[in-house]
């Protein structure tokens, strides 16, 4: 059961990820990204992290991909401007892909990995909360400031600057 599920979900994730790269249209790419996310969320569930799967769908599917779609529609870019890959680029990409596959293969086969998971109880929301607000309190604060400057940054980049600030 789990094996079949894993197979289906991983194929879904990887195949749609490939389509994100290979698709002509930016809108379609965003939709495939969404599908890929769903597959990924399924894998998270298989790994005993349903909460993370939930957050992933909420944040990514709900916010990030929606934002992408919104921007694509807003900018209304020409569809079908799929690049004609130059031979050099393709060669380089194939070479890189070969090297990378080799790397992944060695990574998976040479690495000394635990084959069975540790049998610990599945983490609940409470576990996460406790860790975030005790051990990881400092990074949480820092991330808060990061979100603040990101927000300010978006405002600076989007808002029209008014001269009134130059009051002497």
């Amino acid at each position, binding site marked *: 059961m789990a094996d079949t599920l894993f197979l289906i979900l991983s194929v879904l994730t990887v195949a749609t990820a490939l389509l994100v790269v290979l698709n002509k249209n930016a809108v379609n790419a965003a939709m495939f990204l969404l599908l890929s996310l769903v597959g990924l969320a399924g894998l998270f569930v298989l790994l005993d992290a349903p909460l993370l799967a939930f957050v992933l769908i909420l944040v990514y599917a709900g916010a990030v991909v929606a934002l992408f779609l919104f921007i694509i529609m807003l900018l209304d870019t020409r569809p079908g401007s799929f690049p004609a890959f130059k031979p050099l680029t393709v060669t380089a990409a194939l070479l890189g892909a070969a090297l990378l596959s080799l*790397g992944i293969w*060695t*990574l998976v086969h*040479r*690495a*000394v*990995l*635990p084959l069975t998971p*540790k049998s610990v109880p599945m983490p609940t929301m*409470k576990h996460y909360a*406790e860790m975030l607000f*005790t*051990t*990881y*309190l*400092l*990074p949480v604060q*820092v*991330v808060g*400031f*990061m979100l*603040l*400057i*990101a927000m*300010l*940054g978006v*405002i*600076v*980049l989007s*808002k029209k*600057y008014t*001269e*009134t*600030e*130059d*009051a*002497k």
Partner: protein
Amino acid sequence: MSTELLKAVAASNDWWALGPEMTLAVGALLLLVLEIFSPKKDLRFVPPLAVFTLGLTLITVVANFDKTWGGEALFGGLIRLSASGQIARVFFLVSSLLVCFLGTICLPRARVPRVEFYHIVLVVTAALMLLAQSNHFVMFFVALETVTIGFYILVSYYRERTLSLEAGLKYLVLGALSSAILLFGIVLIYGAVGRVVVDGVVHNGFEFGTVFNFLRANPDNFLATAGALLVIGGLAFKIGAFPFQIWVPDVYQGAPTPVTAFLAVSSKAAGFAVLLLLVRVFAPLQAVLVPVLSLLASATILFGNLSALTQRNTKRLMGLSGVSHAGYLLIGVVASFSQSAAAGAVWFYLFTYLLASMAVFGVMAYVAGPDDSGEELEHFERLAKDRPFLGTVLAIGIGSLAGIPPLAGFMGKLLLFVAAFQAHLYGLLAVAVVGVVISIFYYFGWIRAAFFESWSPPAPGTAPVIHPVAAAATWAGIATLAVLAIATVVLGFFPWPLTSWLLR
């Protein structure tokens, strides 16, 4: 989880140890609050307040310099105060002070909001300081990303200039790429190190000490080695090392001058502060990392210097010469695997680089026109004759960057070379010498533009070139530049104040 455990964790959260970072955060928030309540949008208080916050923090750090809380890990192992962390704090504070100074020159000429700039600079500074003291990969990544996101915004800050936005986009794409690579490396290390139980306490694979212990026991672990290489690859982007230097010239050219200086000095120094931390963590992997870093260093030196040769734009020149400086510094990093004194040499070099670069960027800020466009070498012609003070400061700054005695940059190179010799890095030294000699070409070209051409009369029939010195230097500007130049000269003759600090 019991309340006892909560209390124990809370007790290890020694917030007082992070006083400087919190001061900056509070100062940054204060800027935003005051902006809302300031009458009639009179924002003259903003730069002085930012400078005051930074200055106050600097004073408290220097006053408590030796108070490093015994060096034990705080916040449950997220942060470790140390002497090198204190040095990093001082470095980033000084650098940000000077960035604010450059901001006061450049920002009023461009029609851009003021408060947000200083706010972001303050937050990024605090994040940089945390980054240099982190002892845990989660803290490390979060602080690093805060810095990086801050820089995305700052680089594209001139939102009405296409160049600035283009630079921002380039920095963003390559920065996010390097972050992803770095993150994947961290994940691999976490996976390899796994769960370690020492003295009954469970440690995870994020904590630096745990990683080190694991690597010492398993120096040939494939997964961890791959992870370490990916982390170093991601950091190579931050310091602008080969092959991740492609963003440097474009982003340096497009970014507003204060941001270029911030990138050149603080961002690069942050990369090296982290590399020096990680050298301790990854020490058992020397057999792999030393050749890789050596190769990186040689390629960086040669690439940086060779591609700087043909540049006419001074910002690109500073960027590419900065790439070569990153190469020299990498030699120090390689040396620090076997010579712990090399870390002090790297910091000394960074401080001399800070002084010299800021002096040069200060002059550039005055020479460039209102929209940062007057940065070609031609714009510096006759500078020494028309503005002898700016010319002198420029000459001292460039001389120090070129490593000419008796300026501070020479002492920096000397200390690095001695460390490299002690670590038997003869091949790297040879490359460095070749690099230094090549660099004389383009630094000399700049000096020639500013000094030598001015004595030749303009060709008959052509109007003399007038470089756009847009802003008349204020007394504060003159004083700052003078302090930078004098410090560069004095440290060349008498490096005791810094060396006594860094080399102990």
